[in-house]
C-alpha cells in the first residue's frame, strides 16, 4: 500500500473547478451532497472551502444499488440525510472515485425521490475511467489509469489520503465498480 496522490492539491483543483462551473452557470446558492463514505468527507471539506451556509447532505445509496440481486443488502446501511428541499435546487454531488458510473446513477435516482432538482453537478476526486454507463463528472481532481490488479482507496476523514492497493489485498469500499 503506498501513498499515491497529494490530496490537498486535488482538493484545490476541485474547489477551483467548482467555482468556475458555478460562476459560468450563474449558480450562487448550490447545495452539496456527499455519497458515503468518502464523498461525505470530501463534501465536508468543500463545504468549508466554498463557505456555504446551508448544511451539506449525506447520501447512502445502499437501497438503490443495482447489484442487490447478486450480493444482497449492505449490512452497514445508514439513513440518508438531506437537510434541505431538493426541489428546484442546484446540487453539487460529490464522490471520491468514479469508475463504472453505477454509484452515481444510484445516487441520482435517490436524489430524485426527494424532489426534482434544477440541476446536478458531479465532482469526483479521482476518475478511474472504465465507465459502464454514459455518466461523466463535471469536475475531477485527477484521472488515473490503473493496472488490472490495482485499486485506490480514500482514507480519512482527518487527514484525507489516497492509497494504492494491490487487488489481492482484501477489497474495501472505494466506489470502484459500483
Amino acid at each position, binding site marked *: 500500500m503506498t501513498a499515491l496522490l497529494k490530496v490537498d492539491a486535488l482538493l484545490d483543483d476541485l474547489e477551483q473547478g467548482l467555482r468556475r462551473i458555478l460562476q459560468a452557470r450563474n449558480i450562487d446558492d448550490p447545495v452539496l451532497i456527499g455519497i458515503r463514505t468518502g464523498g461525505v468527507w470530501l463534501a465536508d471539506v468543500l463545504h468549508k472551502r466554498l463557505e456555504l451556509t446551508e448544511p451539506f447532505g449525506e447520501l*447512502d445509496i*445502499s*437501497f*438503490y444499488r443495482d447489484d*442487490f*440481486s*447478486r*450480493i*444482497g*443488502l449492505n*449490512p*452497514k*446501511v*445508514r*439513513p*440518508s*440525510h438531506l437537510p434541505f428541499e431538493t*426541489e428546484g435546487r442546484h446540487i453539487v454531488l460529490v464522490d471520491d472515485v468514479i469508475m463504472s458510473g453505477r454509484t452515481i446513477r444510484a445516487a441520482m*435516482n*435517490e436524489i*430524485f*425521490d*426527494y*424532489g426534482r432538482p434544477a440541476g446536478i453537478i458531479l465532482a469526483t476526486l479521482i476518475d478511474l475511467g472504465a465507465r459502464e454507463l454514459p455518466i461523466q463528472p463535471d469536475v475531477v481532481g485527477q484521472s488515473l489509469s490503473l493496472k488490472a490488479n490495482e485499486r485506490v482507496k480514500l482514507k480519512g476523514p482527518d487527514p484525507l489520503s489516497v492509497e494504492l492497493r494491490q487487488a489481492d489485498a482484501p477489497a474495501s469500499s472505494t466506489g470502484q465498480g459500483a
Partner: protein
Amino acid sequence: MTTTDASARALQLNDQGQLRHFLTIDGLDRDLLTQILDTADSFIEVGERRIKKVPLLRGCTVVNLFFESSTRTRSTFELAAKRLSADVLNLDISTSATSKGESLSDTLLNLEAMASDMFVVRHSRSGAPHFIAESVTPGVAIINAGDGRHAHPTQAMLDMLTIRQHKQRFEGLKVAIVGDILHSRVARSQIQALNILGADEVRLIAPSTLLPSDVESLGCRVDHNMQSGLKDIDVIIMLRLQRERMEGALLPSEREFYKVYGLNTDKLAYAKPDAIVMHPGPINRGVEIESAVADGPRSVILNQVTNGIAIRMAVMSMAMGGQRAQKGQDAEVRS
C-alpha cells in the same frame, strides 16, 4: 427450545449467516438483531420522503398469505412490500382454494408457479411458516407474520425498535410484559429478543392461569401483583386479552382482570417516571388499558405501528438479499 425452533435457526440463515427466512427470533444473535434494527432505522427516513419508495424489491412478487384475520399486520406488510417496489398479492384465504379442499402444499405449488419470490405467512397453527419454508423452492423467502402461540418475530422487532428509539439502549433496562402471556406469540418473541439484546430484566405480570406451564424456562421474573411488578420498570408492554383463544374459565371476568391487571394512571405511577407504555394492538380499552393511558403522553403505541412498516421493510429486504446472495453463491459453486 422446541425441535421446530432448532431447525428454524438452521433454515433461516444462509451459508454467510445472512437472513433468508424470518421465522423466529430464537437462535438469532445480537449482531443480526441489531442489523435489523439499524436497517429499519434507515427505512424510517424513506417514509419521510416525498416519494416513499426504494427500488430494492423491484420485479419481486410478494404474497401475503393470511390464514388468520389481521388488519394492522397485513396492512403494514403490504405497505412495506410496496415501499420496496414489489408487486403484492393479498390472498384472502377465506375465499381461496384451501377452503374448497385444496391442500396447503398444492396452494403453495400454484403460487410458486406464479413466480412468487416471498410469502408472508400468518397461520393459527404453530410451525406453519416453518413447514412452508421447508417445502418451497429454494430462493423463495418466508416471513412469519404470526403462527399460533409460537412466534411473531416482526412484531417483537418493531417493539425493540420502539424501545431503542425511546431508551437508546437495552442494557440496564427493566421491561414488564403484562397480561395474557399464555396465548401470546408476541410475548414469546419479545422475551427472546429482549434477552438477546441484553435487557437487564424481563418481568412477566399475569395471573397464574394466563402463564404458560414452562414459564420458568423463559428466564423471566414472574409477578402476580402490579404494584410490586411495575416497581423500577422502564418499559411496560401490555398484551391484548385474547378472548378468541380462551378455552375454559381462565378468568373470573374481564372486569375483574381490568381491576387487578389493567393499566390505569394510578398503576402507571408504580413504574419509573419516564417509563413508556406499549401495546401490540388491537387495544381492548377498559380491559387491558385505560384510555387516558393508551392516549396519554407516555404511550408509544402509534410509534409501534409506524415502526412496523420500517421493520417489515428491513426484514423483507434482508431476507430477499440473503436468498439472492445464496443463489449467487450456489451458481458460482455449480459453474
